[in-house]
């Protein structure tokens, strides 16, 4: 009975969705609404106006910068929530992170490969962050790569040693780097051009646009890496 009811409900939900998908314009169709409104202008004026040859970056950080500002705040809030739950701040319960996890000594092979690859991964992460306005990538992707680097380093070092790579006092500031970078650029736009997060639109101020985009990219990258690594360590990332 219960299974039949579930199946019936699923079919009732699925049918309108399948019908709606069938109504979508074919992929790449030039007349679909997604291509006929603002995106034509983004593609035409994006590289010149928004200071980023990669149109995705131009849209995310410049045209829709306000959305991304909200997104990085959401990421920071999620860190706060994870810390509140895991460290038992509210209830004063015994912190989960303190429980010992059975640890295994990293083998020589793992240790060697991590040591060999770590500099290359670090370089790649920084490249993805800084080159994000020209090629695919950017702060979010590069930050995730840097965070994976910190996580694999934790597998060969003791957790305390790995955490010492990013000391707690500095990490507190790095965690809010993304909202902070957005706030700095936003207020700079407010002071210079009169609107929060307003970028210059003229050709001779292109250097300023690129500088501001780079500040935001570095903020998102460093902040994202710090947040993801902190969540990992707080959840008990013992080796």
């Amino acid at each position: 009975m219960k299974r039949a009811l579930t199946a019936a409900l699923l079919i009732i939900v699925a049918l309108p969705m399948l019908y709606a998908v069938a109504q979508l314009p074919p992929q790449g169709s030039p007349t679909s609404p997604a291509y006929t409104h603002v995106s034509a202008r983004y593609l035409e004026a994006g590289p010149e106006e928004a200071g980023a040859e990669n149109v995705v970056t131009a849209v995310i950080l410049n045209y829709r910068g306000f959305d991304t500002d909200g997104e990085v705040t959401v990421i920071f809030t999620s860190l706060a929530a994870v810390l509140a739950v895991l460290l038992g701040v509210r209830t004063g319960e015994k912190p989960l992170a303190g429980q010992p996890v059975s640890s295994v000594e990293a083998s020589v092979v793992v240790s060697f490969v991590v040591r060999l690859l770590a500099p290359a991964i670090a370089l790649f992460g920084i490249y993805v962050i800084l080159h994000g306005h020209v090629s695919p990538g950017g702060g979010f992707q590069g930050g995730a790569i840097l965070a994976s680097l910190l996580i694999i380093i934790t597998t060969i070092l003791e957790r305390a040693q790995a955490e010492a790579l990013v000391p707690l006092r500095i990490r507190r500031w790095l965690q809010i780097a993304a909202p902070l970078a957005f706030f700095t650029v936003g207020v700079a736009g407010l002071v210079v051009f009169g609107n929060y997060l307003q970028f210059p639109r003229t050709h001779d101020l292109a250097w300023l646009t690129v500088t501001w985009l780079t500040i935001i990219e570095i903020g998102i990258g460093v902040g994202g890496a710090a947040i993801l690594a902190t969540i990992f360590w707080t959840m008990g990332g013992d080796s």
Partner: protein
Amino acid sequence: MSKAFDITLMVLLITCAIAVIRTKDLLGAVVIFSTYSLLMCLIWQHRGAPDVAMTEAAVGAGITTVLFLLAISKTVRREK
């Protein structure tokens, strides 16, 4: 050729999705879910969205897998 590649990826993706729900071993489910993310990453790349593909590879296949493994190590391995 390109279409056959797309269809292969989609079939593998759906297989992974069903396998994740069916398996009772949570460690196995996490590994299959990581494969799902990898396939999804290939699909994004093949559909011309390299930005999303990079995010999927780093976050989907990498970091969420590690976090899931940590969560399993804190609880039990098998689903009841």
